[in-house]
């Protein structure tokens, strides 16, 4: 085990280039619904047990299935209402299991990126070859079913290996959602080529808010608004990114959906906000700021020797 994978450099917030999003926007806003499939009886991974209770662990299993059967459509309707396209963190096997959901997202011009094959198949202990196989399976099947080339990756169940970032860059994936280091896109150090991290916010993730912080829904709405307010304010210094990572099984329950609706209404009513997708943020950053950030990092490192 290493204490540090040296995946990124240090560029303190007060040394950032002045980033501006298209049309001078100060904040790029994207919504990333995780559309996931959890297997009822997955093979075991030595480093993680998929279900807490003996299988079939029906309460959490059916809770998640509710997201696909019920929640997804509700969540999608709210996003339609505010003209927000989703950037889908997709369990790639869902292409086979639930094509109706895929079609509906495709019709809306939503982005698909990979979240592994199933959210019950963890990256721990995978060889490079095995992890590449997951990435290649994702690229091939998303292309086959949607015509899209995946640009992003969120490791299945946020399980990683030391080489995950190198392998993603090696397959020309543009961005990772796995690093919670920043409020801006940031270059990731990989073996070969360019790679960046896009802020995906664990703290605003509905599962973290509801199941880790145990917050009630009305408070989630407040947190989302507070997060937005500050990121927009600080975007004046240098443009920021706000992401709402979602799971239909959590956010689209009848007692919770209003919180998300109110947050979207609030956010989309502001000026200086670019409502966009993960891929568009990544492409814009590569085209306009990647080199400037690399130069700023180099300059900081050079001027800042001890």
């Amino acid at each position: 085990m290493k204490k540090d994978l040296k995946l990124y450099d240090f560029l303190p917030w007060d040394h950032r280039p002045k980033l501006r999003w298209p049309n001078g926007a100060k904040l790029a806003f994207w919504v990333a619904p995780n559309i996931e499939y959890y297997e009822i009886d997955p093979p075991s991974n030595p480093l993680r047990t998929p279900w807490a209770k003996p299988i079939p662990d029906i309460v959490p299993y059916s809770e998640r299935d509710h997201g696909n059967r019920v929640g997804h459509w509700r969540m999608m309707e709210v996003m339609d209402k505010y003209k927000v396209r989703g950037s889908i963190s997709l369990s790639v096997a869902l292409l086979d299991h639930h094509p109706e959901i895929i079609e509906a997202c495709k019709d809306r011009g939503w982005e698909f990126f990979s979240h592994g094959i199933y959210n019950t198949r963890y990256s721990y202990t995978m060889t490079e070859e095995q992890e590449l196989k997951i990435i290649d399976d994702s690229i091939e099947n998303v292309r086959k079913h949607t015509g899209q080339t995946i640009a992003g990756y969120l490791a299945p169940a946020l399980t990683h290996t030391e080489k995950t970032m190198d392998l993603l860059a090696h397959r020309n994936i543009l961005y990772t959602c796995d690093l919670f280091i920043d409020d801006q896109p940031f270059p990731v150090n990989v073996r070969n080529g360019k790679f960046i991290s896009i802020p995906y916010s664990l703290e605003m993730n509905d599962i973290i808010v509801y199941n880790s912080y145990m917050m009630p829904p009305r408070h989630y709405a407040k947190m989302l608004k507070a997060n937005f307010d500050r990121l927009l304010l600080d975007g004046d210094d240098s443009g920021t990114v706000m992401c709402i990572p979602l799971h239909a099984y959590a956010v689209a329950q009848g007692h919770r959906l209003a919180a998300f609706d109110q947050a979207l209404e609030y956010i989309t009513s502001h000026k200086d906000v670019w409502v966009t997708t993960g891929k568009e943020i990544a492409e814009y950053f590569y085209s306009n700021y990647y080199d400037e950030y690399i130069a700023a990092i180099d300059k900081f490192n050079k001027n800042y020797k001890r």
Partner: protein
Amino acid sequence: MSRPPIEQKENKGETLNEEYFIYPHRSYGMDHKRYKWSLLKDRKHINWPSEKKIALWINVALEFFPLDMPAKPFKALGGTVTSYPDLRHYTLRDYGNRVGFFRVSKAIESAGFRNVTVAFNSEVAQRYPYLVDYVNERNWEIIGHGINMSHLSYTGLDYQKEVENIKLAIESLEKISNKKLKGWWSPSRSESWETPDIIAKHGIEYFCDWINDDMPYEFSTSNGNLIAMPHQHWISDAMCYLHYKHKEQDFIDQAIDQFNFLLRETKSYGGRIMAITIHPWASGQPHRIKALETVLNYFAESNEVWNANGYEIMQHWKKQQ
């Protein structure tokens, strides 16, 4: 942090011997010799400069949570959770050093406070010397906070190893900051029986680990006395948000209630210390920073506040003993 959860253990027929009913320390005062038993209400009244009633001690923690944190004896609050490599929690904590700290600093300065104590894991100083310079430029106090959040002091750790860890943390931070350290806060407040002796031997004058008092007190070591300072534990942002899972408004309410309570107490008991402990990885998140600003602005509106760093507060207290 707290007592272990009460366990349901099976009684396998064990019995207790006579020793269990012998009470060797059953006498007036404490069951150890580190400090004297003393009721807060009976202490000498303290006067802060300019006749202010509350000494405001703002503490900021700059911490590094390595990917390879050992599970034993326990992990510091905020430590890694998932199997290796837990990039999720590793990056969420490092966010504090990259982004959150700048929000926190701005909040402190906007409220008009100029005196801050910053506890550095020495590894944060090594990785990001810019942060040390940033703190030095403002003339904020720097105190030791161990090597990183996985180098804990605890009984069971080899004594020589603990000495080496503490020595390394102090010496490397002193070298990078070009400052002599006076204060110390053990990562996760974890100590072995010997920790106070070791830090005292390496020039530390006050420490922040014990949470048994609301005012400073003398703490004896094999290398002279340390001053134990009332560093805030229960309403630190990390405890509030991560341990208790409280909301932002709860952080505000508790900090303000503590302040007003202490202020009322000063009428009968002399000057008090309002300590606030801030972790940029917690309070520096965009959705939480306003809570910290609200609290600091509330303190700033009071006419009863003397803002000072830990060493200054300690010295003023010591002069009046």
